[in-house]
């Protein structure tokens, strides 16, 4: 403790230089925390989005993702009600949603285009929350529309292409599970945007039972399990794999390609940024400690003359450097926390990422374990810089050190 106090006093001896060095460490710490906090926020947001889009766990026929079906729903799930009830008994399960993936042609009578369809239950919109940006009309409610016609919700690009708006009629044409062609007339209930232009030009939602009628089947494509806590996904995956040995249980991250791409890209960008900042701190502290050691050469000589060992002298400089690193890290963490709070208040929006048409809020996630890890790393870097400088200083002979001016 006594040596720590001496270290603090030595740091205060040259206030301006110490303050500058502390600020460099603090800014580096804040920059690393803000950068990595932004990356963490993005990872978590994308993970939540991936889990929200397809469910925390997706239960399918074992061949569903592997083999190419010769006709629609060849590798679908039949008689899923029993399985669904069984899964819903688990207190950690929020919802179990069946889905049908299908495709075909959409026509307004004058013009025909291809579509990618999703047959869903009305609960889909309640469970997943506001995942679609509804531009006009309403989402599906499971009921029939005007004239007893089934309803469809269309993405904005497709609706514009078909020149339809809520209340207009449209016809969907698809291949049944027997390979025949089937067509059903629909009423447009709403128009939405996914934020992804490629999907906006092709996607539509219909009620699950209507999709089954169109495809002439009782099967579904997937059964999505939504958990209350995304953190329990791995645990439930293991459990359901044992519980359902004849089915395939896939966690959300297996098909979250965008999440993995972004994570890989951000890890490289922010990793490199972090390394550069750590090097900056190393050279800055090295410079400060070199100046300090040079200024205190005579003091080093005096201590050596009195019998202090080299390691005892180096220890003093290491404590000083660790103090600078520690204070800088704490200050940097405070700056990062303040920026976190400020961004929450400002609601600053980032421009849409590539492949998207929607901006998103600029937020950073303040992670205490990350702050501790970065703080310790910076302090360690400071210690290494001090070791380097002090070691060089202590190599001077005692007589030279004592006569140093």
């Amino acid at each position: 403790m006594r040596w720590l106090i001496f270290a603090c006093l030595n740091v205060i001896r040259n206030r301006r230089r110490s303050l500058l060095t502390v600020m460099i460490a603090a800014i580096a710490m804040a920059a690393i925390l803000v950068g990595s906090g932004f990356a963490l926020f993005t990872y978590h947001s994308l993970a939540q989005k991936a889990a929200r889009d397809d469910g925390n766990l997706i239960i399918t026929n074992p061949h569903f993702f592997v083999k190419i079906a010769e006709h629609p729903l060849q590798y679908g799930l039949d008689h899923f009600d029993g399985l669904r009830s069984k899964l819903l008994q688990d207190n950690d399960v929020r919802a179990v949603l069946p889905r049908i993936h299908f495709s075909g042609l959409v026509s307004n009578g004058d013009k025909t285009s291809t579509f990618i369809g999703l047959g869903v239950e009305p609960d889909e919109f309640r469970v997943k929350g506001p995942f679609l940006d509804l531009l006009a009309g309403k989402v599906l409610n499971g009921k029939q529309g005007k004239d007893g016609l089934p309803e469809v919700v269309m993405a904005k690009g497709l609706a514009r292409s078909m020149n339809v708006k809520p209340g207009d009629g449209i016809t969907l044409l698809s291949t049944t599970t027997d390979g025949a062609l089937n067509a059903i007339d629909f009423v447009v209930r709403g128009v939405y945007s996914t934020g992804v232009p490629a999907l906006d030009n092709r996607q539509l939602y219909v009620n699950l039972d209507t999709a089954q009628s169109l495809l002439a089947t009782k099967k579904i494509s997937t059964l999505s399990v939504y958990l209350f806590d995304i953190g329990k996904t791995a645990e439930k995956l293991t459990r359901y794999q044992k519980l359902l040995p004849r089915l395939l249980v896939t966690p959300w991250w297996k098909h979250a390609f965008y999440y993995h791409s972004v994570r890989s890209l951000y890890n490289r960008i922010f990793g490199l940024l972090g390394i550069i900042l750590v090097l900056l701190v190393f050279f800055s502290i090295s410079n400060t400690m070199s100046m300090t050691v040079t200024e205190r050469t005579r003091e080093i000589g005096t201590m050596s003359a009195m019998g202090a060992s080299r390691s005892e002298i180096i220890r003093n400089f290491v404590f000083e450097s660790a103090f600078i690193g520690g204070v800088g890290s704490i200050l940097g963490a405070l700056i990062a926390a303040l920026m976190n709070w400020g961004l929450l208040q400002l609601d600053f929006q980032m421009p849409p990422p590539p492949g998207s048409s929607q901006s998103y809020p600029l937020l950073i996630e303040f992670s205490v374990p990350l702050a501790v890890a970065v703080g310790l790393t910076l302090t360690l870097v400071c210690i290494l810089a001090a070791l380097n400088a002090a070691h060089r200083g202590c190599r001077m002979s005692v007589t030279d050190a004592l006569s140093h001016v």
Partner: protein
Amino acid sequence: MLRFDHLCKSYRTGPTEVHALRGVSGSIPAGASVALCGPSGSGKTTLLNICGLLDPSYTGELYLNDRKVPTDARARTRMRRDRIGFIFQCYNLIPVMTAFENVEYPLLMLGLSKAERYKRVAEMIDGVGLAKHACLRPDQLSGGQQQRVAIARALVKQPKLVIADEPTANLDTATAHQVIDLMRDLGREVGSTFLIATHDPRMTGRCDRVCTLHDGLLAEDQDALENESTVCGPKEAVCAG
């Protein structure tokens, strides 16, 4: 107590080889105080550095308490820590430490218990008359007070040998007298041997013996107080180099 035979030391400054010591021999009995005089460049500080085990690069023999001084750096450091005290011309106190802590520092390195350290430091600080200034840092003390702290620091571990390099050079006459008396009195109490490099006649007058160096050789050896045993070695001892 301290014996040196044919000490030679030379170093290079550019193309020139400078012979700082050219075969100095002598011995100093325990408890004696010896003043080393001589003009600048005569080798006083070089001899002090060698005798204080600060400079390992010399030829010749050096004995402390009849034991040859080791060449191993760690052993020399240990020896300095245990047996040698230093008093410097510019005091060389550690700026962030109080007077008390500066005096305590050598005892910390010796690993003494807190109680023992506090007892010894309090006695020593009291002995140099700075009990009221124990909590002050060096920049809050006058030059004379700082040198008194330095004396206390050198003597607190009761060293066998005290090396003092121009201890009164930066002090006014009155303060110099105080410091000299203090060194002599406390040195006697502790039983330390003093080797003092000085130009100051006030200092040489109070030492048991005065040795004068000239061009790296022992030019003169005077018994300052009385004609007792030979303190310094033969004047004619000259290194072959």
